[in-house]
């Protein structure tokens, strides 16, 4: 049942509970990205808890509270970043509790969940935070015993004087330790990874015990005193304006506490015009929308349709691109001289994020400050957006981050946060805004679709010598819409001697944004499918063709290591018994497909085995995955889970997801029209990590991109039909 302590209390100050900020030892990221320590001592009232740094508090009984700086969206970061601190601090994980850190750049540096960057940017920093704490505890013990620091070591939660065997628990040392000068984080001693006890061992999610009991830890569970529930009706055409609304009629409904027009601006990422309805339950507010009648000025986007965009793309494909993204060698001459030239047009659709927890935010004015509880991937950016939009100083906006019921990039945008803030201020009431699923799907920042017009040339020896891509995407002038661009270095660029990548942009006025593995999630389908076509055209096995393309192990530019690509390709080939035809499902056509992608610093190769029934129905039988994200998997349990989820997410996209537009409106509004993967469609996903001598990087995204093309390549192997448009049209796969 409800336990008040589980809820983010509106009265909670923007600092660790019970701690005096003046007496705080700060460990954070300085302006230049360097760690800094500021002296000070904190002692919690009542608990006897002492702060060793912004991240670490220890009680006299030795129990430890760690702060987790970044939002938890299901990627497991709330567990894994503190694991890194606990490792170096050398404490027993069972004695660690974790708090979601306050939104405070001074103490915690940059706080966000995106780009698979949390591990890459914080692994070393969190180690140093933990190691600094351990160094302070050792120093305190050395003083107590009047022995050299070098004679002391630790075991979990204990400092030991090695020569004498004397022991002191951390809890008895922490008050002294907090008074000592902080160590230099640049030189603080780190553990030998071989001695790790926590990092690299599977650990369950830190909130899981609460989740299995249904405890209220998500944003949508937030309750603040005197709260009313809000819905917010926006124009179904993106960026449309309210002309008028029958507010009085809505206000007269039973249970409705208010109805108001909120005025927004032109930016799709910011506050948009709409009508807020406030009521004493969410359902009452939601049902009042049936009575609400709004006259909209639909604006310039009201004519946008998916058919129109496709026709424009087709017309643009006949003209040269307006923007050159890469030009190596002489692609036209190389294509003319090639032994074999393939030409193909590929496309993929707009798709929605659809995190299962609908967008929501609770906002209230309190003591002159605007207090926000939100599931967000970017609390700092959210605070800035709210402050700017409402004309408040940022110091008057406090953002408490709740656990997020999924992110996938959707909650990088804080449109729902600024809506809740505006409604709370305008109504003067504490407000919990909850979007319906229809709001979510009709007002997303969609993964933009795109069109690719490709030519590839193979020489007489079967080498890929020419690659030409006309990328027709979305944007204004020569500026790509958010997440609608691509870099000129996406594989196989840089591996093909004659390469031309040009782009044309369609101005569409549609809201777009980052979806898990942004740009890579669509590009991978096109490039890895076309490479498979080229392999077949060259009469080569797709694995051999990919390995030949990678060539010798070497660095390409500063970021891409062909050796790491080769290693994951070879590993997955072994796992999937590549080269041996699969056992077909009875009465079906079965094939295996291979794809590789490098994104978000991760190298992933995947093999999909899929079967196709006579009527074209697809069954994905199994997926094998080999991934290299560096030398260390922080939490193997979550890492595997994350990879399996990303792969199945990619398959779901390919199998059925598409947002289409008509009259400037998204046509899909719930899971009937926009299918997510379900249990019967899921399949075993076997995961192997290839450890390499590189710093650990993130896992939220890079496992996704190879999945759609590996599936499509498997379907080609099974049926001989090449999928060049997503989602897959099963009618084309009929026997």
């Amino acid at each position: 049942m409800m336990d008040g302590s589980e809820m983010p209390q509106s009265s909670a100050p923007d600092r660790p509970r019970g701690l005096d900020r003046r007496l705080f030892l700060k460990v954070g990221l300085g302006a230049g990205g360097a760690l800094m320590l500021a002296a000070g001592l904190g002692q919690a009232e009542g608990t006897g808890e002492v702060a060793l740094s912004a991240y670490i508090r220890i009680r006299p009984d030795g129990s430890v509270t760690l702060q987790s700086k970044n939002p938890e969206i299901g990627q497991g970061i709330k567990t894994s970043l503190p694991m890194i601190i606990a490792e170096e601090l050398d404490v027993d994980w069972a004695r660690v509790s974790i708090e979601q850190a306050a939104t405070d750049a001074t103490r915690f540096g940059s706080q966000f969940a995106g780009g698979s960057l949390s591990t890459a940017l914080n692994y070393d920093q969190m180690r140093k935070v933990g190691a600094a704490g351990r160094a302070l505890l050792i120093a305190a013990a050395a003083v107590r015993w009047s022995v050299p620091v070098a004679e002391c070591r630790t075991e979990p939660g204990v400092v030991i004087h090695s020569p004498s065997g004397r022991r002191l628990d951390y809890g008895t040392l922490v008050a002294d330790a907090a008074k000592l000068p902080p160590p230099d984080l640049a030189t603080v001693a780190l553990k030998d990874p071989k001695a790790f006890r926590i990092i690299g061992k599977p650990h369950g999610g830190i909130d899981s015990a609460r989740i299995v009991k249904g405890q209220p830890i998500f944003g949508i569970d937030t309750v603040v005193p005197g709260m009313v529930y809000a819905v917010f009706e926006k124009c179904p055409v993106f960026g449309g304006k309210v002309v008028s609304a029958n507010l009085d009629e809505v206000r007269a409904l039973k249970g409705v506490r208010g109805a108001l027009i909120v005025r927004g601006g032109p930016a799709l990422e910011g506050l948009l015009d709409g009508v807020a309805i406030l009521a004493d339950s969410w359902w009452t507010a939601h049902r009042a929308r049936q009575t609400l009648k709004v006259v909209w000025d639909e604006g310039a986007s009201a004519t946008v349709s998916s058919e129109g965009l496709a026709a424009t793309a087709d017309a643009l494909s006949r003209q040269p691109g307006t923007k050159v993204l890469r030009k190596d060698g002489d692609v036209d001459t190389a294509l003319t001289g090639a032994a074999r030239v393939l030409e193909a047009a590929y496309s993929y659709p707009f798709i929605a994020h659809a995190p299962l927890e609908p967008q929501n935010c609770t906002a209230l004015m309190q003591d002159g400050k605007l207090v926000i509880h939100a599931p967000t991937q970017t609390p700092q950016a959210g605070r800035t957006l709210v402050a700017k939009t409402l004309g408040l100083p940022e110091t008057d906006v406090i953002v408490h981050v709740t656990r997020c019921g999924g992110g996938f990039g959707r909650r990088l945008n804080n449109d729902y946060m600024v809506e809740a803030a505006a409604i709370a201020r305008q109504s003067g009431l504490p407000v919990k805004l909850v979007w319906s699923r229809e709001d979510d799907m009709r007002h997303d920042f969609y993964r933009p679709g795109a069109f690719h017009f490709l030519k590839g040339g193979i020489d007489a020896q079967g080498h890929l010598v020419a690659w030409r891509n006309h990328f027709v995407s979305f944007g204004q002038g020569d500026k790509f819409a958010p997440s609608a661009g691509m870099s000129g270095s996406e594989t196989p660029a840089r591996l093909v001697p004659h390469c031309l990548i040009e782009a044309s942009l369609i101005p569409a006025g549609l809201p777009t944004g980052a979806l898990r593995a942004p740009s890579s999630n669509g590009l991978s389908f096109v490039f890895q499918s076309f490479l498979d076509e080229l392999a077949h055209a060259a009469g080569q096995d797709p694995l051999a063709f990919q390995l030949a393309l990678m060539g010798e192990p070497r660095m390409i530019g500063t970021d891409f290591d062909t050796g790491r690509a080769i290693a994951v390709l070879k590993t997955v080939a072994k796992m999937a018994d590549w080269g041996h035809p699969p056992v077909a499902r009875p009465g079906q056509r079965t094939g295996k497909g291979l794809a590789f992608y490098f994104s978000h610093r991760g190298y992933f190769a995947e093999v999909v085995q899929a079967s196709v029934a006579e009527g074209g129905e697809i069954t994905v039988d199994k997926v094998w995955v080999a991934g290299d994200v560096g030398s260390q998997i922080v939490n193997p349990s979550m890492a595997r889970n994350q990879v399996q989820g990303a792969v199945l997410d990619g398959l779901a996209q390919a199998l059925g997801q598409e947002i289409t537009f008509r009259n400037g409106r998204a046509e899909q509004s719930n899971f009937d029209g926009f299918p997510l993967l379900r249990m019967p469609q899921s399949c075993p996903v076997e995961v192997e990590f290839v450890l390499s001598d590189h710093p650990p990087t993130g896992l939220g995204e890079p496992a996704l991109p190879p999945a759609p093309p590996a599936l499509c390549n498997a379907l080609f192997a099974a049926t001989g039909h090449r999928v060049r448009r997503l989602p897959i049209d099963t009618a084309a796969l009929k026997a």
Partner: protein
Amino acid sequence: MTFRLMINGKARTVDVDPDMPLLWVLRDTLDIKGPKFGCGAGLCGACTVHLDGQPVRSCQTPVSAVGKARVTTIEALDQTAVGRAVQQAWLDLDVMQCGYCQAGQMMSATALLTANPAPTDEDIDGAMAGNICRCATYNRIRAAIHQVAAAHRKG
């Protein structure tokens, strides 16, 4: 209208619109936040609760249709041995990613395992098809259900 409901073994009286879905009576009127809102259309299963042990989508169940049925939410899952085994299996296998759908998943899994202590993969597909996991933790959900079944077989 006043409704007398039996929720998680306790009698509760609510004064709400008869059309109000059970989900919102639970979440907003009674502050029982375990059942989750995901789609409002019976498509995702995040709101799954038991009525007399049968899994139902509470977002599609008007409060007036509950009658005398015993309502069980995730908060009371630990009141049965199967429910406790499901909770433990979910923890043992570290099923969760974001965790938002898992209350619904566990309610459906518990109903399945109560009715059928040794489900096949096909049984699992059938019983769990109505519960979407956006994070796609299906490999582990399936394994967790099998783990509960295996423990039951061992007795």
